[in-house]
């Protein structure tokens, strides 16, 4: 009997076996295709990231170098204070003809004939017009320098700076370029003498706004962004986390809380410029808060960041296993103790991730800040968040609109600074997250 049964059994299993074989091949092919797609997607992403970074860095790294000219400046009393009135009239020191000091020093350095005015003019054009305020600040800070000769490092003019960095094509006809042949010759002699050289550009970090590229920096914007990030963090993290904890752990689940949840999700998708309009209407026009102030910007960005933080926090709270809550409640912990002793610490990594995403978003936000007037030309550092300031992305936007060649590299340089700011913020969050991360 069995001898008869076994062949039929084999016959009946054969089609099933071959059918299954085809299926497996197709499954593996599908998996390979999917892997190829995934690999391709990542490769494309990495390629564009590399292009972005390369274009920003290759254009922007020169912004961190600045050409300077170190000249022995004679602070002659004849020029600064010819009538010797500075004891009675301190204003004298502010209005003195400082560019003349630079001119005299340059004429002496280059051995020019002071009578040839056009030539002298070209020579003095090599030094930034910011030399006036630089020398004035030296004299005002310490009037005893009058009568002495001390070496002062002055900023080179943006055109000379560009030429010295090799960014200006010198083969172009002289009439059509901003740097004249004499200036190039002087530049080279001064460079050989060690008077003119490139050094690290601290100014880009410390200067405020200026129409002269060599004297323009992101200092005010950096401080403004820092103020805003601190205020946004201080406001949005506690408010967002408290709101999420209440909604997730305490609030009854009914139609009202459903409505609130839907609205929070929708708010996360509202275009940021709408928040700017809200800030303009409510904070500035209705509450009468100052225009261009970091505080108002921070308020607007807080409103913008809150939905992101709330959504991330609620997701993090939901991800905490219910068994942990039961364990704490079963021991007789109150609801509040359960949440704050057990659930919140476990949700902390997720909350921090959400917060950093929200803050990074806020740091790069430009549109709402334009509406509340943070697009201003601010030269002086804001002493408090109530004083006018700008923000990094707004500064980048403003520089991108400038026509001068030297602002191109500064725009990219400012982008690099913004990215570094972001990296430091992320680093802080990652370190914090490490401290909170626990296995279960």
């Amino acid at each position, binding site marked *: 009997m069995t001898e008869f049964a076994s062949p039929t059994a084999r016959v009946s299993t054969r089609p099933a076996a071959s059918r299954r074989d085809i299926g497996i091949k197709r499954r593996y092919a599908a998996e390979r295709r999917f892997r190829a797609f995934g690999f391709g997607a990542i490769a494309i992403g990495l390629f564009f990231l590399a292009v972005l970074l390369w274009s920003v860095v290759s254009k922007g790294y020169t912004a961190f170098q600045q050409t300077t000219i170190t000249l022995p400046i004679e602070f002659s009393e004849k020029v600064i204070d010819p009538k010797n009135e500075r004891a009675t009239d301190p204003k004298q020191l502010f209005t003195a003809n400082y560019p003349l000091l630079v001119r005299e020093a340059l004429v002496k350095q280059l051995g020019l004939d002071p009578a040839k005015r056009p030539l002298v003019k070209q020579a003095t054009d090599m030094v930034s017009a910011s030399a006036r305020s630089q020398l004035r600040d030296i004299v005002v800070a310490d009037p005893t320098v009058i009568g002495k000769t001390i070496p002062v490092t002055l900023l080179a003019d943006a055109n000379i700076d560009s030429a010295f960095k090799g960014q200006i094509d010198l083969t172009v006809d002289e009439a059509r370029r901003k740097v004249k042949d004499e200036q190039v010759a002087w530049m080279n002699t001064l460079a050989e003498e060690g008077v003119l050289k490139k050094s690290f550009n601290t100014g880009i970090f410390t200067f405020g706004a200026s129409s002269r590229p060599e004297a323009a920096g992101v200092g005010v914007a950096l401080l403004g962004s820092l103020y805003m990030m601190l205020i946004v963090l201080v406001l949005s993290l506690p408010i967002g986390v408290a709101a999420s904890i209440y909604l997730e752990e305490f609030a009854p*689940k009914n139609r009202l809380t459903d409505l609130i949840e839907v609205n929070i999700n929708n708010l996360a998708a509202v275009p940021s410029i709408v928040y700017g309009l809200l800030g303009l209407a409510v904070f500035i026009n209705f509450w009468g808060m100052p225009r261009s102030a970091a505080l108002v910007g921070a308020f607007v960005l807080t409103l913008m960041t809150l939905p992101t933080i709330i959504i991330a926090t609620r997701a993090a709270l939901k991800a905490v*296993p219910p*068994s*942990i*809550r*039961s*364990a*704490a*409640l*079963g*021991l*007789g*912990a*109150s609801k509040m*103790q359960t949440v704050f*002793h*057990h659930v919140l610490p*476990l949700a902390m990594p997720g909350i921090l991730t959400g917060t950093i995403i929200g803050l990074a978003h806020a740091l790069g936000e430009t549109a709402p800040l334009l509406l509340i007037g943070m697009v201003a030309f601010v030269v002086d550092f804001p002493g408090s968040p109530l004083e006018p300031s700008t923000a990094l992305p707004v500064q980048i936007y403003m520089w991108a609109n400038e026509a001068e060649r030297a602002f191109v590299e500064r725009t990219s340089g400012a982008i690099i600074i913004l990215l570094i700011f972001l990296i430091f913020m992320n680093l802080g969050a990652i370190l914090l997250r490490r401290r909170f991360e*626990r*296995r*279960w």
Partner: protein
Amino acid sequence: MSEAAVEKALDQKMNTVPFKMVGRDVSVYYGEKRALFDVNLDVRENTVTALIGPSGCGKSTFLRTLNRMNDTIENCRVTGKITLDEDDIYDLSIDVVELRARVGMVFQKPNPFPKSIYDNVSYGPRIHGLARTKAELDAVVETSLQKAGLWNEVKDRLHEPGTGLSGGQQQRLCIARAVAVSPEVILMDEPCSALDPIATAKVEELIHELRANFTIVIVTHSMQQAARVSQRTAMFHLGNLVEENDTDKMFTNPDDQRTQDYIMGRFG
């Protein structure tokens, strides 16, 4: 003494043991659905009471009414009366936090906090103010771990995470954590269902020892376990209490046909 005489003596002894918790006409509703129908069940002091029955019969639901863990479930409503030493635990004057300190709970899956072993055990005493100094707290942790039979295994690594222990050790850690609050009653919801036979044996042994100091109510799916660890057994079916009896009688000569069928493995 003859065997029958011993049994009789035991019965009498059993019947003189005072009731720790008394449930009268306990019904539980999840929204519209009724999960328990007028259950009358008494829990005797220093006794292990096993709740058995097929899945979904309401035994866990009943267990959770005893320390009001059902309060945490949305739409859950409890009617009837449950007393702990004659205090109605659903009375407004009873604080649920205090109740849960008196009626501790061990869950189906070991759920230690992702903290150190020491912090796991000391958490309860800390929030209930049971230890005033560090030395007192250390003593509570040590005695609790000893009661849970875990002290010798973990005394050198008290500050390592409790989640790093094996499954059986984690469950005993959870028992130590419950014991540390000095509850009067300990509820156990299938405490061995996630454990291997050796760990199960250890936990069962532990339950046997804990009986001297605590009143224990245990939900179990294992008939053998109920027979091994409990003195009283209650059988649930479809939300009704079918039979409650001494464990020995229940497994040898049950009063109800359904109990007989369930124990014989005919349904469930």
